[in-house]
Structures are given as structure tokens and as C-alpha cells.
């Protein structure tokens, strides 16, 4: 501790800016980690809370996927002896027409029995009818809202609210206001209770319920009740506690969560290199000090401990600041992620407070501290080995010894070879990821040697561009490979991630675009919601007849899709009119014959699955699929695998006739409309809108609008990750600033001599700039090279763990070309401050510097 106070503290004070830049690496890395995970946790927690608050005293929930089931199931459940209370539920979010309020969660309940499970704690009601469920039931426009919602929108009993329903915009009457406790807190207070049969009408549910909430009879346990209901209903129904919905939600978004974890950790890894670089420089600059300490009797252990303590302090301070910054950033990220999830997965959530997890903060702190101490380990060890005699010799310490170079090359070769072996055996996930890590490690081990090589290769080029300045810049890089290579490694790693992700995004967007060309080719789509992933509102099949009668319409294809549980994971079932689709859509087969798979599916003898579904669940042609339906367990063999991007968790295509038969539901989500050749599409579209005016409120979206909506969705999905990568690049660029700052400090006398013999300040500036641009360029070359390898592994990771997507390897050339001027500009900007610092101060001070 005394050494820390006597030696470390004065050094830190002299080089405060550099230490701040060093800390910034850890702060940013920890901040991103904390922010992403806090946002993730807040959304999941909000979902769980909504589920719990709405559930009330519900112990079990009976469901059959998102399709729901017939009303007759309710009586079967109520007839089970172990059941105490069983009430039907419909749940959906609908759009309000209240400015700034967005959507509201509608809970359709049977008020005659629901009070056994939920307490509405009515605060107020109509003057004439107080707390009167009879009027509530008798008037289908009745709503109960929360006190919070009422106050926010200046509503009172008998106020009117407009909601967007299947029949268009309709007015509803507030007939009760719930106090702000329990259920009323769900969905951020944007919750309304409606009679279940009225809800069926406005949401197009027909004679179906979404689920049944159950409480066991007092004489039986919940487990007994669960077993009895399962026995009564069969395997087609899920009978789970309310908390299971939260697990389903999490499993649906697991690949997204994993992607967030990986990309947030990258920022930390890059920060680690900054720390390493700073400590390596510190050890180098303090060699004389260390030599003197050793000469006076300090042990190697004490010297090593000193640097460890410094890294511990730096890591602790950086981590704490990073944790605070992360929590501050989390709010904005949470809102953004909620919006993205609503638009991509159809889950609407209102996150009202951040779920800051002390364990997460502790983990982030630990990771930051461990990263910092780990990064300082090699420099600390190096400091401990300083020979007191050699410590006073200048110059030699910057050079990488031949032995050290050889060792690194051998280790890199070994890592590379093992990585290749792992690649050949990459059917094993463990070996695949081991190979990935080893390949990156090989790149990092080779970075110093390659940096030196490229620096030497750049020397003649720089000399030709600017003879004096270029030579000085190149010499600075060549003579200080340790300093340079650490920064280059950080930049290389960041760029490798950028190229890898950029390539994945480019490949994914290209694949999606091809898929849209082939599969999403109707002239327009008719939907009950502007958000095409919203499946809560459906329309009757008769709508197809109305549209087909419109002049100019060639064909209408109905689609019904929803998630059902398959092996514990919600998967997307898409019921299509297979025969019609096969004539108009040219799908990309991955396995099986297209004609044969269509024929079998159309006749109800099979199902076609997406390639991601097959990959995630490890199934292939001929494998049986069992799907729970209200009519029993539906068993179909897989007759084909196609490329499809309808859902991240994979999709299953069945014929609409099969869906209608097994789910006893004739409604649809979407109608795909084709126009006669030669017809004006816009004119036909308007005729369709006019034809449906008297029926249901449906949106008619042109093909272009749908594509734009999908691309916008994907951009939003990727935007968050792009931002994280930008943070990693920023951290790497900070490394350049750090390196240049040290370089200028080390060369202050040299730069002073330059000015003394007639060098201009502009020449010194140019020298620094060139040095920064060179670092940027070397980082780019190595980063793009490693990035090309990283892209291959990234695509492999996506296939294995992020949705099972099979994407083509497409090197993102345009993206890389864009990165070149971006990185070089960033490197140049990083050099501006240090360059000015180099020319500041008097000549005498510079020459006296030692």
C-alpha cells in the first residue's frame, strides 16, 4: 500500500489524461454490459409482472397456443372435481385513439365468476348503478379502466373511449375505475376489463377463448388439480402455472438475449486491450524506477503486486463508473428494445421501471475488475522480471525480443492448427466454439509480428508521401512495437467484430430480400393490424369472398398463423392454402421435392418446415411432428424443408384445411391478394378498400409497404447491435489516443530537437497524424483479414445458436469500403489532440525533458 501511495499515485497524477482514457475503456465496456442486460431484464420482469398481476390468485392456466380453443373446453375443465374455480379469458392489446397512449391491454373476463380469481377493487361507478356487474354484462360497450389510466386521460365514469376494433373505431363507456393496486398495475396501468363475450366480438374470436384460468379446489393441491385437468383434456392442452408464460417469452427471445450478451462482452474485451496497452506502456516508462526498487531490495513479488494493485484500483474505479453509466443508459435502451420486440415478436410491453439487479451489477463489477487485472497480468509479470542493470539502458525495452517473437509464432501456429482440427470436427458445439476462440487467439498472438511487418512495409510508402514526417512516423511504429501492437490488436478485434457482424447482417438482409422476392409476391396484403406480427385480431373467412368479387382481383389466399408450444418452445404455425400458394410462390427448397411436398401438404398428409426450424429442433424429412390441437394431437411427417424467414424461431406450414379441422377455426390473420395482369394495382386496391367498408376494419398494404415495413423492422433489430459495435470502435480509437499520447511523451526530446533544427510545428503535427493513420491502416488490414475469418464463425454461430438460420457467406465489401475512411478519419481525429499537445510548450522545456 505504501508503494501504491509513494510511487503509483504520483505517476497517475503526472499522466492523468492517459489513465482517464484507460479507464474509459473499462467504463464503456461495463456500461454497455450493464445497460443491455438491465434493459433485457426489465422487459422480462415487466412481462412477468403483467402476467402475475393479471393472474390474481390463478394457480393454473389452460391454453392451446395462440389459436385458442372452443368454448366447450370450459365446461370440461369446470367438470373436473379438483377444480375450484375455472374462468375463461381473452387477452389482447388494441390501439386506443387517445393521443399519446398507444395501445391498451384488454382483458376479457366472465364477470359472473371472475371475482373468484381477481379483485377489481372498484373505486367508483355509475351514479345509478354502483358496483353493478349486471349493467357491465348487459352493455357490450362497458369497460373498466385503472385509476392511473383514468387520471392520465381525464376520464371518469360514463366517459367515452375510442378503441380500434375489428369493426373499425368504436366507442366504449367507462363503467368502473379500478384502484391502483394488484391487477390495475399491470401493463403500466394501460389495462381495461371487458366482458368476455363482448371481447370475442371486437377481436374476431368467434366462439373461442384464449385460455382458462384455474384455481384448485380447497381439498386438493395444485399438482393434483393440474394432473386431473391434463388427464381430462389430453396432451393437446397446456396446463401450467402463470409463470410458464414468462418462460415461453424468454425462450422466444433467447437468441436475441444471447446476441446481446456476446456483443456487450466484446466491448469489454476491447477495453481489456486498452488496459493491457496502458500497463505495458507504464511498465516500459517506469523501468528505471522499477530497476531502482529492485536494486534497493524490493522482491519480484512486491513489484508484481504493485502493478496488480494499480490494475485493481483502475478496474474498480472504471467498473463502478461504468455500472452507474450503464444504469443511466438502460432506460433509453429499454424503451427502444420494447418497441423492437413489439414489432418483431408481437409482444407489447410497458416497462415502467428498470429492474436493476444487484447480482448483475456485482457481476459487471467483477468482470470489469477481472478484465483489468487479467489485462495487467503480463505487464505486471514483465515488470517483476526487470533486471536492475538493464533497466537503466534505453531503447532495448521497446523491442520485442527474438525469443519472444518465436514463442508467439509457435503458439499462434499451434492455436491455428488446433482450430483447423476443431473446424473439421465442428459438428460438436464445444469444438466449434473452442476452434473459434483459438482462431481469434492465433490472430492476437500474431498481431505484434504482423504489426511490425506492416510497419516496415509502410515505411517506404510513408517516406515517399512525406519524406521527413513519414520516416519519423514509420520509425516510431517500428521502434515501439509493444506500444503499437496492443493498440492495433484492439482495433483489429473491433474491426473483426464489425466485419463479422456486418457480413452477417448483409448476408441476412440479402437472403431476406431474395425470400421476399419469391415468397412475398402478392400485389397487396389485407390484415387486421398495421403491425403484421400482431395475431390477436382475426377476421372471418368470408372476407375472402368479398375481396374476390372485386373487379380486377385474380386470387385471394387466406393465411392464419399463431404460435403453439412444440417441445416446450413456442413455434409459428402458418396455415396456408397450399395449392394456391404453390402456383404463385416459388419457394427455395432446402430438402425435398417442391411439387411433392406441396402435394402432400395440400392433401393434409404432411408439413413443410423452415430450414431454421429443422436446424433448431434437429429434424429432417420424414421426421414426425406432433402438434397439440384442441381436437387432439396432430401428427404429421415433415415432407419438405424450405428457406423461410417468417419467424426467428422457425415456422411450420400446414394446409388451411388441416388447421380448420383440428382447431375448428375458420378465421384468418392475413389475406394475400393477386391482381389480374394488366390491371392498375392501386385502383384495384382502392376498390377492395371500398368493398370492405361496410364489413370489417382491415388494412390493405401494398407489396412495397410490406417490404419497407420488414426492412425497417430489421434495421431496428440490428441498430442496437450496430450501436454496441460503435462503442467497441470508440474504445479502440481511445486506444489510439492513448498510444499517441505516450508516444509523444516518450519522444518529447526528439520532437524538441526537430524544432530546434528548424522543423515546423506543422511538420510535427503531420508526423503524429501519419503515425495515427498508419496505426489505423494496419489495424484495418489486420482487422479485415481477421474479420473475414470471424464472419465464417459468426455465420456458424447463427446457425447453431441464433435461430438456426443458414446464410450464405457474402463478404461485405461495400461495408468494408465504408469502414476504411471511417476508421482512418477516426484515427486522424484521435491524433488531433496529441498532435497539438506535441507542439505546445517551449522549445527549452522540450529539450530539457528527461
Amino acid at each position, binding site marked *: 500500500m505504501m508503494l501504491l501511495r509513494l510511487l503509483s499515485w504520483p505517476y497517475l497524477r503526472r499522466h492523468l489524461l492517459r489513465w482517464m482514457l484507460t479507464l474509459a475503456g473499462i467504463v464503456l465496456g461495463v456500461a454497455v454490459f450493464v445497460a443491455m442486460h438491465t434493459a433485457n431484464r426489465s422487459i422480462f420482469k415487466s412481462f412477468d409482472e403483467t402476467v402475475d398481476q393479471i393472474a390474481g390468485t390463478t394457480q393454473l392456466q389452460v391454453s392451446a397456443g395462440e389459436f385458442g380453443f372452443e368454448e366447450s373446453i370450459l365446461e370440461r375443465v369446470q367438470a373436473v372435481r379438483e377444480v375450484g374455480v375455472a*374462468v375463461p379469458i381473452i387477452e389482447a392489446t388494441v390501439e386506443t385513439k387517445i393521443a399519446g397512449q398507444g395501445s391498451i391491454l384488454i382483458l376479457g373476463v366472465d364477470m359472473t*365468476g371472475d371475482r*373468484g380469481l381477481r379483485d377489481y377493487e372498484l373505486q367508483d361507478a355509475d351514479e*345509478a348503478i354502483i358496483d353493478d*356487474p*349486471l349493467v357491465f354484462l348487459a352493455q*357490450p360497450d362497458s369497460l373498466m379502466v385503472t385509476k392511473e389510466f383514468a387520471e392520465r386521460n381525464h376520464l371518469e365514469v360514463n366517459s367515452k373511449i375510442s378503441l380500434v376494433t375489428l369493426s373499425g373505431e368504436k366507442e366504449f363507456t367507462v363503467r368502473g375505475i379500478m384502484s391502483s393496486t394488484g391487477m390495475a398495475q399491470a401493463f403500466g396501468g394501460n389495462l381495461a376489463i371487458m366482458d368476455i363475450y363482448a371481447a370475442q*366480438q371486437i377481436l374476431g374470436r368467434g366462439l373461442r377463448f384464449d385460455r382458462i384460468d384455474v384455481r384448485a379446489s380447497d381439498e386438493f393441491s395444485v399438482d393434483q388439480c393440474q394432473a386431473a385437468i391434463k388427464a381430462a383434456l389430453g396432451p393437446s392442452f397446456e396446463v401450467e402455472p402463470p409463470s410458464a408464460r414468462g418462460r415461453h417469452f424468454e425462450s422466444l427471445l433467447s437468441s436475441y438475449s444471447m446476441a446481446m450478451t456476446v456483443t456487450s462482452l466484446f466491448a469489454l474485451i476491447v477495453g481489456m486491450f486498452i488496459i493491457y496497452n496502458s500497463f505495458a506502456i507504464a511498465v516500459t516508462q517506469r523501468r528505471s524506477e522499477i530497476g531502482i526498487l529492485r536494486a534497493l531490495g524490493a522482491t519480484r513479488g512486491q513489484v508484481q503486486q504493485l502493478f496488480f494493485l494499480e490494475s485493481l484500483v483502475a478496474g474498480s474505479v472504471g467498473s463502478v463508473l461504468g455500472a452507474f453509466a450503464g444504469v443511466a443508459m438502460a432506460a433509453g435502451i429499454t424503451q427502444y428494445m420494447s418497441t423492437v420486440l413489439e414489432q418483431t415478436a408481437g409482444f407489447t410491453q410497458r416497462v415502467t421501471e428498470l429492474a436493476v439487479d444487484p447480482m448483475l451489477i456485482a457481476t459487471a463489477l467483477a468482470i470489469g475488475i477481472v478484465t483489468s487485472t487479467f489485462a495487467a497480468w503480463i505487464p505486471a509479470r514483465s515488470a517483476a522480471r526487470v533486471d536492475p542493470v538493464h533497466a537503466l539502458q534505453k531503447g532495448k525495452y521497446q523491442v520485442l525480443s527474438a525469443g519472444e517473437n518465436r514463442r508467439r509464432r509457435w503458439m499462434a501456429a499451434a492455436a491455428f492448427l488446433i482450430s483447423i482440427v476443431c473446424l473439421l470436427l465442428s459438428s460438436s458445439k464445444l469444438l466449434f466454439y473452442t476452434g473459434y476462440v483459438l482462431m481469434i487467439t492465433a490472430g492476437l498472438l500474431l498481431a505484434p509480428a504482423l504489426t511490425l511487418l506492416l510497419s516496415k512495409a509502410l515505411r517506404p510508402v510513408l517516406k515517399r508521401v512525406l519524406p521527413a514526417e513519414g520516416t519519423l512516423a514509420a520509425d516510431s511504429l517500428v521502434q515501439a512495437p509493444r506500444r503499437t501492437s496492443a493498440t492495433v490488436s484492439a482495433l483489429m478485434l473491433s474491426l473483426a467484430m464489425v466485419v463479422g457482424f456486418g457480413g452477417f447482417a448483409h448476408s441476412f438482409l440479402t437472403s431476406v430480400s431474395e425470400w421476399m422476392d419469391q415468397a412475398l409476391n402478392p400485389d397487396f396484403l389485407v390484415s387486421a393490424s398495421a403491425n403484421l406480427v400482431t395475431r390477436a385480431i382475426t377476421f372471418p373467412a368470408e372476407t375472402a369472398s368479398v375481396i374476390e368479387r372485386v373487379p380486377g382481383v385474380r386470387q385471394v389466399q387466406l393465411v392464419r398463423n399463431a404460435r403453439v408450444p412444440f417441445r416446450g418452445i413456442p413455434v409459428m404455425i402458418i396455415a396456408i392454402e397450399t395449392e394456391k400458394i404453390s402456383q404463385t410462390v416459388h419457394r427455395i427448397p432446402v430438402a425435398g421435392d417442391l411439387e411433392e411436398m406441396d402435394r402432400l401438404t395440400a392433401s393434409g398428409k404432411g408439413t413443410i418446415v423452415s430450414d431454421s426450424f429443422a436446424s433448431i429442433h434437429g429434424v429432417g424429412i420424414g421426421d414426425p411432428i406432433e402438434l397439440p390441437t384442441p381436437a387432439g394431437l396432430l401428427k404429421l411427417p415433415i415432407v419438405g424443408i424450405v428457406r423461410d424467414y417468417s419467424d426467428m424461431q422457425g415456422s411450420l406450414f400446414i394446409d388451411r384445411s388441416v388447421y380448420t379441422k383440428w382447431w375448428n377455426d375458420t378465421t384468418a390473420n392475413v389475406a394475400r391478394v393477386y391482381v389480374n395482369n394488366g390491371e392498375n394495382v392501386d385502383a384495384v386496391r382502392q376498390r377492395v378498400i371500398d368493398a370492405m367498408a361496410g364489413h370489417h376494419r382491415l388494412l390493405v398494404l401494398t407489396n412495397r409497404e410490406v417490404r419497407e415495413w420488414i426492412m425497417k423492422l430489421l434495421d431496428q433489430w440490428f441498430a442496437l447491435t450496430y450501436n454496441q459495435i460503435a462503442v467497441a470502435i470508440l474504445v479502440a480509437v481511445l486506444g489510439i489516443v492513448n498510444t499517441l499520447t505516450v508516444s509523444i511523451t516518450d519522444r518529447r526530446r526528439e520532437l524538441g530537437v526537430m524544432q530546434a533544427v528548424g522543423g515546423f510545428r506543422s511538420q510535427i503535427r503531420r508526423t503524429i497524424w501519419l503515425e495515427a493513420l498508419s496505426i489505423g491502416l494496419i489495424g484495418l488490414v489486420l482487422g479485415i483479414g481477421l474479420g473475414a475469418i470471424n464472419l465464417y464463425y459468426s455465420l456458424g454461430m447463427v446457425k447453431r445458436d441464433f435461430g438456426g438460420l443458414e446464410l450464405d457467406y457474402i463478404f461485405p465489401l461495400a461495408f468494408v469500403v465504408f469502414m476504411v475512411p471511417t476508421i482512418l478519419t477516426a484515427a486522424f481525429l484521435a491524433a488531433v489532440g496529441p498532435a497539438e499537445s506535441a507542439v505546445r510548450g517551449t522549445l527549452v522545456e522540450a529539450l530539457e525533458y528527461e
Partner: protein
Amino acid sequence: MNSVVLMFALSSFLLQQDPRQIVEEAQRRAASQSQRYEGTLQVINAQKKITEKRWQYARIGSHGASKSILRFTAPAEVKGVALLVVNHPERASDQWMWTPNINRDRRIALQDRSSRFFATDFSFEDLEERDTNQFDYKLLGEETIDGAVCWKLQSTPKQSKVSQYSQSYVWIRKDNYVLMQIENYSKSELVRRARYSDLRNVQGIWTAHQVDMHDLKRDSHTILKTDKLQYNLPMKDEAFTLQALRRQQ
């Protein structure tokens, strides 16, 4: 001869002391093949606010196996809402509710019977007819209600019957076997008290034209007044089905 008279008198006396037979006699005297009336329901809450509804009531069949339809006629917000109750001697009744504005009927589930009947102090179970075989009875003595001497009996549901009440106390007038009061208990706590008044003889049947149900937990009252009461009118069984419920509006 004297011993025969004595034995007859003694057996008659003993017969009158059998609680089940008291209840059965009360039911026998109130029995009719059909019944119709117009009712007014006033709900007075703890803050003394009064709400009023009106309905038409019709019943057919013997006690414990009857069917009845209750159709609201006022206020306008609830006009047309109807309830069909089909009683069974051996099990709990079946109940359905019809809502004309959404054109739907719904079954009132068995477990819902304890909930309040449309914001009144009656529960759905209170609307069911109690078959004597579903209960055990015990004679507790005599008390006076509104100046009339009554038998006080304890009624406990048998295991086979699902009820929200653990037991009830029933007061039956000794002179005309009219039900005067019922106190319903849930786990030894008094939860509801029904008081019958305004007795009138209609077609030879003594009937209370006012029932005051007091919910002690909520401290609210519901007063049901019967008007235009008629017994043994010709009614068709088909008029007491779910189809009829949906048809009549």
C-alpha cells in the same frame, strides 16, 4: 279407547316435532304447479344509496325439480337480460344467463354460485330451491318473529351437496308453516339473513310478498317485493328452455 286417543295424540305431537317433516309440511303448503309475479328489487348499500331493478318471474314444476325464468324489465340498461334456473333434486341447479345486446347466453358455473346475484345481496345459490333430502335438520326450539311463534331449526347441507354455507337457521311459523327468517352461516360466521314479511293468502297459499336479504359483511340490504302474484297458471315446459330464453326478448 282412551289409550288409543292418547296414543294418537302422542304420535301427532311427536310427528310435529320432527324437523324434516316441519320443513316438508312448509314446502307442501307453499307448493304450486306454476307461479308468476312481477318483482321490484331494491339494493340499499352501506352508504344508504338505493338502486332499483324490476323483473318478471315465472316458475313451473314441483319444489326441488322446478324451472324458472327471471327476466329484467327495468332499468333500460338491463332490460331483456334473463336468467334460467333448472333445479334438480339430486344435485345443484343449472343456471344460464342471456344477454340480448350481445346475443349470447352463458352458463353460470357451479363454483360461481357463491357470487352475488347481479349486485344484489342474494347469491346465485340463494335462488335455488332447497330439496329437503339435501339437508339434515335439527329442531332447536321456538322463537317469536314479528309476533308469530316459530319453530327454529338448524339446517346443515349433507356432504353430497355443494354449498357456500356451512349451516343455516330457519324459522317457520307454527300456525301456517310460512317461512319467516333464514340465517346463513359460513364457517360459524353469520353472513346473510333473509326476513320474510307482508304475508298474504293468494289462492289459498300464504306467501310473503316482501323478502329482505341482509348481507352482514357488506352491511347492505336487498328488498324484493312481489306484485301481481299468481299461482297454477297454465304454462308450457318448452317456455323454460335455453332456446326459449334466447327467443323471448
